[in-house]
């Protein structure tokens, strides 16, 4: 069963220079218990997608088209009060650099308690304390952390506590936006294991956003590759890695160093990401594509995901270039 379905989502930022189409015609779905990865370079719209799911985008960001169905109910049209019910108790999010988002003068436990009180005002203080201890146990923290201030914890501990906070109102879906980017490799490894464990125990769905394709390979069942606001390839993680169809996906894979297997020459992704202001709806990768066809150069092919094989989709512009 699909817990989340995003259909033809468009999101624009209105700026002085023009409309920035940060999310263009994005559709994907996340099943119960599944983990779904979104990968792409900086500025490709990964975080904008995450923010639009909870409508937490900046004030100048507007969803101009599309539906976001959470448990079958469209949440684009909801007002702030109705959204509050879904935020945290339906969908919660671990922000990028979230460990720096703790209030420095309030104890960790109190900050989590605050979130629970907001959603379940009738629960007793004792219930909440038990809940927090339980959450800490799940993410591998000692219950004494409750009484600590954020500055007393290391980066890894703060990030675990953020995950506990994200779990505090029993969400069905967690969005993890680069949750390990500021951490070093050993701590990253521990946090990734923790997230996987939590997902197993609680049967949660997960949207995992990262620029690191190696982490996506480890964490997700299905994945989407984003480029310039659009999904250019989507499918089972295994299939996308084994048989990448889009030139951009291939370049991402070939530009990732690994410590196993033959040491091979890596390929650099030349060129800069395109401007997203006032574009037509043609493939924006054609400027950087290693072997563009005449059709892409003349910009006659509209961007549209087409089926390549079962549960594996690729943008139609790139089906001939590879």
């Amino acid at each position, binding site marked *: 069963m699909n817990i989340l379905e995003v259909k033809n989502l468009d999101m624009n930022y209105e700026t002085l220079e023009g409309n920035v189409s940060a999310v263009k015609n994005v559709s994907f779905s996340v099943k119960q218990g599944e983990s779904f990865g979104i990968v792409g*370079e*900086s500025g490709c719209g990964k975080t904008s997608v995450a923010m639009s799911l909870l409508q937490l985008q900046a004030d100048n960001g507007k969803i101009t088209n599309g539906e976001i169905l959470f448990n079958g109910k469209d949440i684009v049209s909801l007002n702030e009060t109705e959204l509050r019910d879904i935020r945290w108790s339906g969908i919660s999010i671990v922000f990028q650099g979230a460990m720096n988002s703790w209030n420095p003068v309030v104890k960790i436990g109190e900050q989590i308690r605050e979130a629970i009180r907001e959603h379940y005002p009738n629960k007793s203080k004792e219930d909440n304390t038990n809940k927090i201890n339980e959450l800490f146990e799940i993410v591998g923290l000692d219950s004494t952390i409750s009484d600590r201030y954020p500055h007393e914890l290391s980066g890894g501990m703060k990030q675990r506590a953020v995950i506990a906070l994200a779990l505090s109102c029993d969400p069905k879906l967690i969005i993890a936006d680069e949750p390990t980017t500021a951490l*070093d*490799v*050993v*701590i*990253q*490894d*521990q946090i*990734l294991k923790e997230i996987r464990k939590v997902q197993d125990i609680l049967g949660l769905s997960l949207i995992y956003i990262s*620029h*690191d*394709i*190696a*982490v996506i*390979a*480890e964490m997700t069942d299905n994945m989407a590759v984003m480029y310039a606001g659009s999904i250019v390839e989507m499918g089972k*993680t*295994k299939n996308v*890695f*084994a048989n990448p169809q889009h030139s951009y996906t291939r370049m*991402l*894979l070939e*530009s*990732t*160093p*690994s*410590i*196993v*297997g033959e*040491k091979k020459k*890596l*390929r*650099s*992704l*030349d060129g*800069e*990401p395109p401007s997203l202001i006032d574009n037509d709806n043609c493939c924006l990768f054609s400027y950087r594509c290693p072997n563009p066809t005449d059709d892409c150069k003349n910009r006659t092919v509209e961007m549209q995901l087409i089926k390549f094989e079962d549960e594996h989709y690729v943008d139609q512009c790139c089906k001939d270039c590879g």
Partner: protein
Amino acid sequence: MNKNLIEVKNLQKYFEISSGVFSRNKSIVKAVDGISFDIPHGSSLGLVGQSGCGKTTTARALSLLDPKTGGEVSFYNEDTSSMESIDELDGEELKNFRRNIQMIFQDPYESLNPRWNIKDIILEPLNIHNIGNLSDREEAVYEILKTVGLTPPENYMPRFPHELSGGQRQRVSIARTLIMKPKFVVCDEPTSMLDVSIRISIMDLMLNLAKDLEVSYLYITHDLAVARYMCDRIAVMFNGKIVEIAETEELLNNPIHPYTKRLISSIPIPDPTYTRAEYKVDFNELEGIISSNKEGKDMIEVSKNHFIATHDVKGLL
């Protein structure tokens, strides 16, 4: 000619921390605690480890930005064809010597002066060392910009750092470093702030320049996959000490020290069908190696050019 460009013996950098009333309580932080390695001409050594293990302190001590508190660093002197300790240098000699060692910093957004244009930024070292006349210097800047791939150079010379992307800024840093024709460049995570898409092109640029200009690197990173791509040998650092040092493929295929194994097991692999071996540190395995070390040396050679530390493994992880 001596095969080594730089030899480091027992390098120490201790910081004194004072606290309490009138700073009466003093304690010492051993950020770098007796590390030794050498780097042959034209070869690159990767220094990997977690945050706070002393990688950057080592870099700063080696590039003479901070004075070391102990140990010996010797550098190959071309004129005398012998190794020369840097402690013996002072005044003009030291200034000349500094030309041989340059550093590339982690953050290209902070390490370039925002009020200077690119030409002035790259000219500065030439001015300080008083090399050539103005037109020679400008010619050198023009050439080096071409070398690092910022073409056409005349477009970049009048620009300011904020007008450039992260990758372009890091190219400027590299140009500023290489214009002194150094023999040895210390790179402190030069690609970790950059986006995936431009990371490889900067790494490739550095590899090509190393080959063309015969530069040796000390390459600092926390990512073993990057170190594998960039370095001939890798040294693994933990708590201010080097725990294992070997040729890159040897280190990755036959890690011996438990900390190295733990580090390797935590690197994600870009292959969804690959299952990483989970590694829990097993100290018994190490016990044998330590007890066989009767001479009390800090590092022992377990196979050709593969050294491991024998101290302080109990406190690991």
